[in-house]
Structure formats: C-alpha cells, structure tokens
C-alpha cells in the first residue's frame, strides 16, 4: 500500500529523512529501527572533511528555525568506509547527498559515489550556508543545466537534484535540471533568513544568515512542489516543514511522489514513523490501494 517507485528504485514507503537533519542515522536508530523508513538521506557530503561554521548555528523563529551548520561532515571517504556498512544493516534505501565548491569537486565526488554502495545520489546545489558553491550553483538555470549534465555523465545511479527556493522562478531551475539529465527533483532546501539579538545588536547566527525550515515554510514548499510538478516530467521528493501525516498527504497531493521529514525530528524523534503510520491510515480510510494514487490529485480552481 505504501511502496513507491522513484526512477526505478522501490521504496517500501514514501517517507524519508531530509539531508542534514539525520546525521548518518546512528542517533535515531536508538529510537527505532532505521529499516522502518523508505530511505535515509544522509548528511551532506563533500570531497574533503569540513569543520562547518562557527556557532551559534541555530536560531528559533516563529514555528521554524534558521540553521547555519555549513556542511560539517567527515568527508566522502570516511562515509564510504564507516557509514555505508552501518546503514546497509537496515532494510532501507541510502541516498547520498553530495556537495562541492567547484565543478571539479562535484565531478570527483560523483565518481567516488558512483562505485559506492548507495542507492541514489542527491546533488545539493542549494546549500545557503557555504561561501563557495552550494546555492550559487542552484540559482542560475544555465549553470544548473551544465552542472547536472556534467555530473550525469559520471554516474549510472539515479540522480536527484535538490532545488533552492531562493529563486524568482523555481520552475526555470527545475526545467534546467531536467534538461541536464536529472532523474528526480527534491525540493525545497531552506529559505535564506536572518535574526538579530536586539540587546547585543548582533545576528543570532555567527554566519549572520542561515537557512529557514520548519512548519513556517510548509506552504511555500507546497506551492513550489505544485508548480514544479506541473513544469517537469520527473518524480518529486517534497520536503519543507512537514511535521504531521496530514502535511505529508497534502505535499503528495501537491505533486510529490515521496516526502522527507526534517526539522520536525528536532521536536519529535518519532515524527517520521508517525507520518508513515498516518499516511497508511489515511490510505486505508480513503480506500486507496497504493499511496501513489494520491500524488498530484489536488483539484486546483
């Protein structure tokens, strides 16, 4: 009832974790077996280890947060050596989220991941928290198309491209990623935001600005998934502020074939499980035999 197919990869259910909110799964495996999830999207990886940004890295906002972690990660080699064998113990799909500061970085990390034991690659061209690369690659259609097509040539694995919402027209970027050879699109990454401590007149985040996520961004994510699903012919992983099964169903009706839970984990480590159970219950109640039947079924005016 819950299984979904994304570019030839079958997920046991449409619920995955959003990159950057779940580490490599080890911590949440203390709460439930990771095999409960459709897929695990790991912390963003770079060719070399990265220390990330100076703290504070988080600020609360009305029903949301800003973060500026800055892609702290142990580097792709250590991921392949230590984290893949751990994740492979569980009956779930592994998505490797990969980032770079230059085109060469992206190609080199893609080559490494192509021969690694992961199920899908997610190309991060939308991180707002790094000085070089990241979002800079994801906001210009021509750059997106050339990067995606170059990466496409380096891997046979299904390629997800993660889109930034910090653009005027996300459908232009989505079409460019499709033209470049993406198999799947995921959206949205975080929205660039800022908060200031009025006593010290300093930004709360040491990086001054950061990426906003959480329930407050959910309607924006729904709108963008809706627009993108009508602009391209690719499966979509919808994310951005999903914290309940109702949000997940709404996101799928907007056009998402699968969904990711992220920031909600910080409030409730069990959130993805509750989302999955709620989707199943909804399908049963609605007489839906497979959850994919609800994808894109919104009836717009």
């Amino acid at each position, binding site marked *: 009832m819950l299984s979904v197919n994304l570019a030839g990869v079958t997920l046991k259910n449409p619920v995955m974790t959003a990159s*950057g*909110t*779940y*580490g490599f799964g*080890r*911590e*949440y495996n*203390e*709460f*439930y077996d990771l095999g409960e999830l459709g897929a695990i999207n790991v*912390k963003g990886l770079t060719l070399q280890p990265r*220390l*990330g940004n*100076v*703290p*504070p*890295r*988080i*600020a*609360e906002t*009305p*029903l*949301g*947060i800003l*973060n500026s*972690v800055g892609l*702290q990660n142990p580097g792709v080699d250590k991921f392949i050596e230590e984290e893949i064998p751990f994740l492979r113990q569980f009956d779930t799909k592994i998505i490797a989220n990969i980032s770079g500061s230059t085109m060469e970085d992206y190609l080199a990390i893609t080559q490494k991941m192509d021969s690694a034991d992961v199920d899908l690659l997610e190309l991060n061209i939308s991180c707002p928290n790094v000085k070089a690369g990241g979002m800079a690659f994801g906001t210009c259609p021509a750059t997106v198309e050339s990067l995606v097509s170059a990466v496409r040539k380096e891997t046979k694995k299904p390629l997800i491209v993660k889109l930034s919402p910090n653009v005027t027209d996300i459908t232009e970027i989505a079409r460019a990623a499709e033209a470049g050879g993406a198999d799947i699109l995921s959206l949205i990454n975080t929205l660039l935001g800022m908060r200031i401590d009025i006593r010290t007149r300093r930004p*709360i985040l040491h990086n001054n600005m950061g990426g906003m996520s*959480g*329930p407050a961004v959910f309607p924006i994510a729904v709108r963008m998934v809706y627009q993108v699903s009508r602009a391209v012919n690719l499966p979509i992983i919808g994310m951005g502020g999903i914290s309940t099964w109702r949000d997940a169903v709404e996101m799928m009706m907007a056009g998402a074939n699968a969904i990711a839970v992220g*920031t909600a*984990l*910080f*409030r*409730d*480590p*069990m959130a993805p499980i509750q989302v999955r159970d709620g989707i199943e219950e909804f399908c049963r109640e609605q007489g839906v035999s497979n959850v994919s039947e609800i994808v894109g079924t919104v009836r717009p005016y």
Partner: protein
Amino acid sequence: MAETNLCAVLSCRALTKTHFELCLDAPAIANAAVPGQFVHIACGHSHLLRRPISICETKDGFLRLVFEIRGEGTEWLSRRKAGDVLDVLGPLGKGVFPLFPEDPRPVLLVGGGVGVPPLLSVARARPAHVVLGYRNEAAMILYRDFLASSDTVMIATDDGSVGTHGTVADPVSRLLEQNDYCAVLACGPKPMLRAVADLAKGKNIPCFVSMEERMGCGVGACLVCVCKTKHGDHEHNSRVCMDGPVFSADQVVWE
C-alpha cells in the same frame, strides 16, 4: 530503545526573580541519569525547539531541575504548575562528570550562575569542595544545598555582596594552593570555564568543563551545538549534546 517521556510536574517555584526550580515525576529518566547529563524539554506548541536543561539532582524517581529564564521557551516553562505534563527527552549527553570513585581526595567543583545546578549531584555523590560564583546575594541559587553536602563552600559575587568581590578565580586559586584535588569540575559562563581550566592546568590537575551552546535535536544528529576540540594535532567540531556537554578541558579549543 530511547523514547520521549511524558512527565508530571510535581512542583514549580521561583528561587529568584529569574531562576526556577522544577520537580518532575520521571522515574525512567531519574533512574538512568548520571551527573552532568541534561534533559530536552518541549516548551509548548508555539516553540518548535526543545530547551536543554541540566539535571540538578535525581532522587527516588524524581527529577529536580533548576533553570534561568533566558527567553520565551524558558519563560513558558517557569509558568508550569503541579499536575501539568511535560514532554521530556533524556537523559542526554555521553560526556559526563567523572566521579573518580576510587580516589579519596576531594574534587573541586566550580559553578557560575545557572551553571551551578548540575554540580549538585556530584557534591551529593562524593567528597567535594565547592566555589560558587553569583551576580549578587539575591542570585545565590542552591547555596544551602551545597552547604549540606560539602564542608567547604566558598562564594564569589560580582558586586561583593557576599564572599569574594569579583570572579571565582581568587577562591579557586587559593583552594588549589591549599588542597590536593583529584580533579576540577566546572560549569558556567565560557570566560569562567577558561579561567578555571587555566588555573587547574597550572597545578597539573585534570579539569572537566560543561559546555553550553544553542542546541537543535539534542541527540547528536543535526550538528548545530558544536564546540571546537583538539585530538592530537587535528581539530574537530564536537557535539555538545552528544559528545558533551562535559569535555576534558585539555581538549577544548577556547575561542
């Protein structure tokens, strides 16, 4: 398997204008907790993030927390009443205060402001001398509790209303001169921790500090609450929530 706990509030009372004591009926957490750990509490539906609060003391399935109002979340927490139910994650933190059970020498505990509470469970567990730093006389939280556990409790206040006028540095260096300690354990503002770590290092005494940082998930996944640490010749951003909150002062890169 880890899980969140729904815990009944037994009491909530003001200790000062800004410090509150919250007692919870939380047997699962209380029985598992060790000194230095914290709990992560959901503070109403309008605050997305939980608030990390150090564990002051555990006894017979009860959890005693002492916290300061820092913003809207802790303000919400301060308004809880007996019978309310809180969603509590914990006990959290794998870096905890070492207790040196085999060593008969006392430890020196150094607390500053709202860093004082987590030291109480150490003072209850083993011989300890204590130095507490406060803003002023009115802010002297838990002073009597420490007096009941330790025969040496020294005070420093910013305004000189009680004890040494100034920081904890003077009483700490005096005690380090006079006594043989197995370790110094400290919790408080970063400048205080750094000063205490330097004093302990000068005496070649192991020092452990409890760090604080704005926190996200609380379980080690989101990499938000980091503290720079050194391991041999390489530096790493350790997670305060998971690798800490207590770190060996030798490892902390002070910046």
